[in-house]
Structures are given as structure tokens and as C-alpha cells.
């Protein structure tokens, strides 16, 4: 795979996945794997980082006789996600302008 995923990009993707619906570690990995080949060991530090900066919070919910840890996007996380999306749009346009020869006249 040619393009490495930066930490910021991974943070924003995880935020986006959890924003759709509160979910748990395994499912987040499975979801992100649709786009990028990552393992749980990559996801764990991302989740911790997002919790530390209070963009994500956790709660436990019973599932088949055990507690499953669910992640939820905080209001601070919502703001961060909106910001990430704006930045991504700009970033994508700039890369496309070079890589795909799109809208080169605007630069």
C-alpha cells in the first residue's frame, strides 16, 4: 500500500466512525479496515489519545453477560470532527490539483 495514513487522518476517521453511532473497539477496527489496513494495536493508542484530549468518552453496556466498552463522541469531539472534515476537503483539493491535474488554474 503506497500511502501511509497519518495520525491526524486516523484520529479523524475514528471520530467519524464513532460519530455515526456509538460503537466498540472491534467494530471500529473492522469499519476502518474497509479503507485502510490497520490492526487493533494501531487503533488502541488512537482511542487512548482521543479519550485523553476529551474528544471521545466511554461507557460500559452489557452484552451477552459481559460489559462491552462503547465509545461516544463528546461535544468537543464534534467540533474537532467538523474541523477535521474542513481541513480534509482543503487537503484533498490541493492534492488532487497536482495528482489528478484538477483545477490547477486556481492555484
Amino acid at each position, binding site marked *: 500500500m503506497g500511502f501511509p495514513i497519518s495520525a491526524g487522518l486516523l484520529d479523524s476517521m475514528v471520530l467519524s466512525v464513532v460519530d455515526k453511532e456509538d460503537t*466498540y473497539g*472491534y467494530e471500529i477496527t473492522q469499519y476502518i479496515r474497509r479503507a485502510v489496513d490497520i*490492526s487493533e*494495536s494501531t487503533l*488502541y*493508542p488512537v482511542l*487512548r489519545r482521543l479519550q485523553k484530549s476529551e474528544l471521545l468518552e466511554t461507557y460500559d453496556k452489557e452484552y451477552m453477560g459481559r460489559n*462491552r466498552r462503547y465509545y461516544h463522541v463528546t461535544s468537543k469531539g464534534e467540533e474537532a470532527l467538523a474541523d477535521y472534515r474542513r481541513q480534509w476537503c482543503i487537503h484533498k483539493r490541493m492534492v488532487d490539483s497536482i495528482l489528478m491535474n484538477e483545477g490547477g488554474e486556481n492555484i
Partner: protein
Amino acid sequence: MNRLEYLTSLRRILEDGGLPREEINDAVRFYEEIFLDAGAEKEEETSENLGSPEELARKILMDSGIHVEGDAVFQMEAAKTHEEQEQEQEYAKKSAQQDRNNMLVKLIIALVTSPLWIGALCAVGGVAIGLLATAAAILFAFFAVGFTMTVGGIVTLFTVYPAGIVLIGTGLIFLGLGGLIVVPAVKGIWKAMVSIFNGAVSCLRNYESDGNGKSWRKIFGGRTV
């Protein structure tokens, strides 16, 4: 490795690494859930995907800023991606090959040009030794002439005694001069010989220790074969 083995091992390594208990529980809980959600029938597969407990623990410890095995270089290594490591290995292989090539080139050049440099070396060495020998001969000549004249003078003293006195006098002058210069001359010759020897030795040593073939590259404008 099944879930229980894997998680037990992970916890033990994290404890050994000195991670705070709260963080250990957090990590082990996270990976326990991964195992459980992946399904009991997939435990082996999950543990394979996660890599060995040692590797995983190392990652977790490093994310918490704990130096594993107290080795700073190790952290740098671990931070590199797989691709970077491959590139490095490739590069190391290439440069090792290049070093071998350089050694070979050096050897061949040394052999091919041997008539030149052996000749030059002999000439330089010969001149140096010649000069030293001359100095020694002059010194010896002083004594020889002085001694001969003095002895001759003593013999002549009994036949033509004024001539004998002149000869003895001249001979004593030569012996005296020889005596004056003998100590500094011998010291000088000795020093010169030692420095010639040292020069030759350090010259050889420099070429040997110059493993990168820099001196040859300088001479041949950085071309590699």
C-alpha cells in the same frame, strides 16, 4: 496462542515494563474485548493479527513513553515503518558490496601500478639511506684521517721531526673536530632513521584503516566500479 495465554503474557510483560496499573488494566481490557468480539473460534487468528505479546507490549510501553530495555537506539528503530527498514537493509547490503568492490579496486590498482610505486619507494628510501651513510662516512673519515695522521706524525717525529709535529698537530685537529661532532651527528642520524621508519609504518597503517577507500576515491574522482 489462545486468548487467556495471550492476555496473561501481555499483562506480565506490561507489569515488568513498569506501566501504571490503571493503564495495564485499560490495555488488557481493550484487547480482551477484541478477542471476545472477534469470537471464541477466532482466538488463534486474532492473536496472530496482533503480533506477539512482546511486540504489542513494547508498542504500548513506548506509547506511554517508557523506554524498553533502556535503549534509546531501539526506540528509533521501532518508530520506523516496515518499508523504511527494508530500504535500510537494502542500502546496507549495497554499501557492503560497494566496500568489497572498493577493496578489490584498491588491490588491483596497487598491483598494476606496483612497478611505479616500488621503484619510487626504493628511490626515496635509497636516497635517504645514502645521505645517512654519507654523514656516517664523513664522521668516520675525520677519525680515520685524524688517527692516521697522528700515528704517522709520531713515526715521522723520529726522522723529520718538524714534519712529524705538523702531522701530529693536524691529526689531533681532525680527532678533536671528530670528537666534537660525533655525539650530535650520531643523535641526528638515529633520529632521521627513526622518523623514516615511523613515516613508512604510519603510511601503511593509514591505507589499511581507510576502510571506505576515501583516499582512492579522492584520487579517482569518486568513481565506483
